[in-house]
């Protein structure tokens, strides 16, 4: 059995007595593609917050490649190879598309290096390749703030690709995208898996089906079940939390 790259062990997060996550166990293996679904308030975003260091768990362990990352700052965890896209696309609105990508693509992130060295031509080529792929190349010199919602989503995902972390966490990557864009995103994500480890949180079941990845269902801060989408869909507990009734009668 392969060693897990990310390992959550009995993680709980409480906000003033309200438990957003309860004793969550979660393992992720290198190169894996995993989807996470769950109704609103299931703790999906908090789950990402814990992994990326935004929220400190009340109890439990989070290990990245066997190393405990609890208490590390967001930037340290990010430098260890964890990248995240937020629920709403967060881009640097007053920078151009190209500069957004170049900034995240930069391998060195210290002030001194940014002042004295320019970006390597390899990294710059990579940025252009990404822009070509997602169709943002014509907008390279445009301020990111003037892009449409869908374009911002793409840019946010592109920034992650440019950053090229080992683990890519995507929070609702296709919210507000058209069907065409959605299937293209699914393609992109599938191509990322393997080289990267990818976690996708989505409500769009079509999209989850497109991904064809194992699904983890979260409910009230706990892992309800795990398996392929078809298996999960048949699970009476899943039907209950989504539809609010059981098949028992």
């Amino acid at each position, binding site marked *: 059995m392969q060693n897990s790259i990310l390992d959550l062990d009995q993680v709980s997060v409480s906000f003033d007595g309200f438990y*957003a996550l309860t004793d969550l166990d979660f393992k992720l293996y290198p190169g894996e593609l995993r989807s996470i679904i769950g109704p609103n308030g299931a703790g999906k975003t908090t789950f990402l917050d814990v992994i990326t260091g935004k929220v400190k768990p009340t109890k439990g362990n989070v290990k990245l490649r066997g190393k405990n990352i609890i208490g590390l700052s967001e930037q340290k965890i990010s430098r260890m190879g964890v990248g995240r896209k937020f629920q709403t696309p967060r881009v640097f609105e007053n920078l151009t598309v190209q500069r957004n990508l170049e900034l995240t693509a930069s391998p060195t992130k210290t002030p001194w290096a940014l002042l004295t060295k320019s970006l390597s031509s390899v990294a710059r080529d990579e940025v252009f390749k990404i822009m070509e792929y997602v169709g943002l190349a014509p907008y390279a010199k445009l301020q990111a703030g003037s892009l449409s919602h869908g374009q911002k989503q793409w840019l946010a995902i592109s920034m992650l690709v440019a950053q090229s972390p080992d683990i890519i966490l995507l929070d609702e990557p296709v919210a507000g995208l058209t069907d065409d864009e959605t299937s293209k995103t699914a393609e992109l994500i599938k191509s990322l898996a393997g080289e990267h480890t990818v976690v996708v949180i989505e409500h769009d079941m079509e999209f989850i089906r497109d991904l064809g990845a194992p699904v983890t269902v979260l409910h009230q801060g706990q892992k309800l079940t795990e398996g392929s989408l078809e298996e999960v869909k048949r699970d009476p507990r899943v039907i209950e939390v989504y539809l609010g009734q059981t098949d028992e009668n």
Partner: protein
Amino acid sequence: MDLIFSQLLDGLSIGAVLLLAATGLAIVFGLMGVINLAHGEFMMIGAYVTFVVQNIFRPLGGFAFEAYYIIALFASFIVTAIFGVVLEKTLIRRLYGRPLETLLATWGISLILIQFVRSVSLAMVIGIAVTALLGWVLNKFLPLPLKQASFASYLKGSLWTVAGIIGLIAISTTASIGRFFSNPWFGPRNLDVTPPKWLQGTWGSIAGIELPGIRIFIIILSALLIAAVVWFLTKSVWGVRIRAVTQNREMSNCLGIPTDSVDSITFGIGSGLAGVAGCAITLLGSVGPNLGGAYIVSCFMVIVLGGVGNLLGTIIASMMLGIIQSIIGSGSLLIAFPDMPNSIRSVVEFFATTSMSYVLVFIFIIAFLQFKPTGMFPQKGRSVEA
């Protein structure tokens, strides 16, 4: 020990004034995210309203004069609340969600208010009235095609400028008529408010220590008002609406809560509290146009120290600030403990002026924030940082 106790009482009353003002500021900041740098000037307006009420009642004498202060309390609340509502409706409304911009704009307002109090005269009031009336009429009776033209906003701006210039001319012409028109009402100098007799003197004594009426009155006043604010925010219909809007503006809007009115009322109440604080200040010292500046930084410190939107924190922080300032700043520690070691004595002496007590308090607060960056009573939960 008596000295320390009376300084403590002094500190408590200063803290009580701070508490009133800071609560107003905290309501506006905590509930609306607006930094109001003109808050100190609202205190100043409250103080001047007290002065005006006093002068109206003085000739009446007797019981009427004794009661003026109570009326002044209400008047200062109402007048400053009106100022606040007008400010919210005209300016703050345009700047929601941009706290740094509101900070700058309200600083501009505070400058205008300070100078207004210094130089307001009958001529000036006439000039302002002329400008307001003219600007309104000109824009009201603008032909419809012009109103809908693409350059309408620029045109309106120019019309207001014209009205302003005519207003200026009106000021200078009326001012040249005579001193009756041009004399400033208050002027730049400090004015004094005489407390009514029942507030002067002492209100009994505890264990041989006299209780000065003014101090006790301020402390009671502040306690009552804070209780009223708590009741209003938690129990009254409008209070519930205010809290609803704070938590989810869109949802409140959908539920039929008039969010515009809620904003105005919130801002009005915050400002009104500043007015009452100003009214209380008149009992402690003289009234001047620069009164607000002295308190505004302390008010912000109270909020930072106590944590935003936390009443208990605000109370403790303001009392602490008041007491530290009065006990250390007055140098009464030196008198109360005459035989402290020399090294400590020199340190205490170093800080034993009003100026240096500020230095001490602010350094203390900045140091405190190193350990508790979110104040004594931080807010928790996922709403804290988006």
